[in-house]
């Protein structure tokens, strides 16, 4: 039976009819055509579908669309566009933090969650924060560098804003 939900995705409001069993990731991908969140597994293990729900990283394959009713969601598409990249997106490009790109949106979102909580993470902090997300291409080495780059960049921004 269809259920009506109201969500804000990347700052835009949507009212949609969803099936009670629809997963949030399929709602985003199929109904809103935001295909940045990817489905890499069926056990909430790979993190390729990670988005922010009310600012917190969540695996959107493990959340029903109806559970997101009334929530504000940020996907990788909401982070920045090709001509106005978020420091994290910039970091992944600068430090070759991606190869095939399939895990990348999830990595960016979980790193965004980390940097909100911990603006100055150590390498181990970063590795622990990323451990719910699989990457099979990079060996994580350059993903860590990418997040470190973004942390630096965002600290500079904060300093400039404070000044």
């Amino acid at each position, binding site marked *: 039976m269809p259920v009506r939900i109201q969500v804000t995705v990347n700052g835009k409001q949507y009212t949609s009819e969803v099936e009670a069993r629809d997963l949030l990731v399929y709602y985003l991908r199929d109904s809103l055509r*935001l295909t*940045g969140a990817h489905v890499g*597994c069926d056990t909430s293990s790979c993190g390729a579908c990670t988005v922010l729900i009310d600012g917190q990283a969540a695996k959107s394959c493990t959340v029903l669309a109806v559970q997101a009713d009334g929530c504000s969601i940020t996907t990788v598409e909401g*982070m920045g566009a090709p001509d106005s990249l978020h420091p994290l997106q910039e970091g992944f490009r600068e430090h*070759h933090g991606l190869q095939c*790109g399939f895990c990348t949106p999830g990595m960016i979102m979980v790193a965004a969650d980390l940097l909100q909580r911990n603006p100055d993470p150590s390498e181990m902090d970063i590795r622990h924060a990323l451990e719910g997300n699989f990457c099979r291409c990079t*060996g*994580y080495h350059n993903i*860590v560098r990418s997040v470190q780059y973004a942390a630096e960049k965002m600290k500079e921004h904060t300093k400039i804003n404070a000044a």
Partner: protein
Amino acid sequence: MTFIGKSVKRLEDKRFITGKGNYTDDIVLPGMTHGYILRSPYAHARIVRIDTSDAAAMPGVVAIFTGKDIAETGIVGVPTGWQVNFRSGDTMKEPPHPLLVSDKALHVGDGIAIVIAESREQAKDAADSIDVEYEVLPAVANPAKAAQPGAPLVHDIAPGNVAFDWELGNPRAEVDAALAASHHITEMDIVNQRLVPNAIEPRAAIGHYEDAYDKYTLYTTSQNPHLTRLLMCAFVLGIPEHKVRVVAPDVGGGFGSKIFHYAEEALVTWCSRRLKRPVKWVADRSESFITDAHGRDHVTRAQMGFDKDGRVTALKVSTYANLGAYLSTFAPAVPTYLHGTLMQGLYTTPKINVEVFGMFTHTVAVDAYRGAGRPEATYVLERLMDTAALEMNMDPAELRRINFIPPFDGVNQPGYQTQVALQYDSGNYDAVLDRALEMVGYEDFRKEQEAARKEGRLLGIGFSTYIEACGIAPSAVVGALGARAGLYESAQVRVQPTGKVSVYTGAHSHGQGHETTFAQVVADRLGISLEDVEIVHGDSEAVAFGMGTYGSRSLAVGGSAIVKSLDKVLEKGAKIAAHKLEAAVEDLEYTGGRWTVKGSDKSIGFGDVALTAYVPHDYPQGVEPGLDFSSFYDPANFTYPFGAHVAIVEVDAETGKVSLKRFIAVDDVGNVINPMIVEGQIHGGLAQGIGQALLEGAIYDDEGQLLNGSYMDYAMPRADDLPSFEVDRKVTPCPHNPLGVKGAGEAGCIGSTPAVVNAVMDALRPFGIKKDLEMPLTPERVWRAMQG
């Protein structure tokens, strides 16, 4: 202006970091239906009865097809691309591999029926309602057990479950004699466990038949779209090749598992024709585990003989290689021509014999996975080396060094002819080992290790010096070895009238960064900017032909094809330039994107020549308009990258948990176009190789059930399992291709595994463990070994 050797940031990144990549599952076509495949839960079972009537009546169901429906149209199944015959000369046993089985399921995951519905959920719901009666039969999963008398038979046509047996090298009797005369023999039973490639993007395919055009389009997660088209059209469905377009859009990792032509690709294409609607199939991860081709799975006995100084006298290897239930596209080649041929390693071993039994089992097919055969060979050699060093009380680095083939560049010194068919192109093995020892601080480490042992801490160091054969491969050679295809590559360089350049390559990028590396080669050769170059790949309608990406071949073979076309562009461009400059071609030089009359200031730019080629009003006689060339490049030899890897581990004496403290990799992959990308390739390979050593392994029980077929159960390396890597490079150019490149995609995966295992064994030295520990070296296995 030069781009070669620069760490140019990747041109393809922007779409991926903004969520705008275009993967197969992102594609939605008008009227698209969704397919879900019901699969056998048993490894070996006769299908007594299938009742689809309840399922067919369920909401949204469009059609259900079973194996019988397909068999009735005369379709036999997907073929293999290699033929490896028996030593006796008998033909390889090659059973059919149906798209869906109609009588017997031969592994867990064998397709039984496909349900096509309006939505993916409806298709799944209906598949649950298909009633199948199975008669469960005994199964065998292990390749050595499959060879035992009385083992359950996978195919009636293959007695003893043997698909082929194969032998290479010096006569066995000679090797036995050399072993018997040896001062010391190291003998090991080695298991190279089965791995699941696990590209993070699950396989997917969309078949789209358009009756108004009588044309098919297949979108698929492939490393190899042209070969998929050829195999599917000519050998599976019998449809004309010019009526089929195969598109491999952005592909989320492959590691070998997406080289092959899979049943689902033909299945959705066939279904789409039946229904005259697009049919999409996307694997669940659980489905990927039981349908993607797996890798490795060798059971080996090896003996290596040494003289009193530690020089290797002989090597004898006997391997049971698991092929799974069916022969996948490259499967017969992997344990033979990509494995047996590497048994020389970096060493001067004078007598080598290797035999391989290709075994059918009731498991999913085994085929090329990152490194494909070469990691298995390297693992055997490098475990033997370290074990021998221990047994002979020699330093493991020194033992390797005294056995190294001396340096040769392949130009002034000839290539090195091995005992196992290959001729190495160029190498300098001392250089990589020296650099690795320097980076690790070997002498200091041994002191630290000694001090740690006194405190009860278990530190270990492990080496691996590897060689691999990549840039596959000369067509005539692989043809003689049983390949049913050539292994050249094609490239078209189309100069647009404004001087912008579109390059169409048969290689396929699924993370390797071709759109950047290839553009660097083009921009460099033509002296134009990177922004003026586009690299097009992955679409059979755009690219004339291609053999795809695997075996670290893209730059060595595909890049060389591009260079050939670029040279043709410059040759013709010079004729046009000479005409415009009223000079002789011999008097021109081309630098910085301009033809200049030597010793003058008269010149013309690349863009002006391009425009002239397409607006040929004032034009040289006898020259055709246009500036657009295609080339095929067939390599003269394989390429042979090599390197030295060193691992430092600490084993927790209480729990057996292994922590990887440092990993040093010094690789020589020939010339490097983009160091950033090459390092990224090495990093990724290291993670997969380390994963095999410490974490990964597909576990089949005796009934053929895959016990760890999910990401919750199959342990892949996560970010906090790995350290940052310490990598460096040496450069010994490849002497036989125009770029001097060798290939970097698999090196990390080939060298790293034995280095880690050797390090753990070194850490465990005080325990005097004699038996080889089986990978992955989980805390439990290490702890048990420590208990004796």
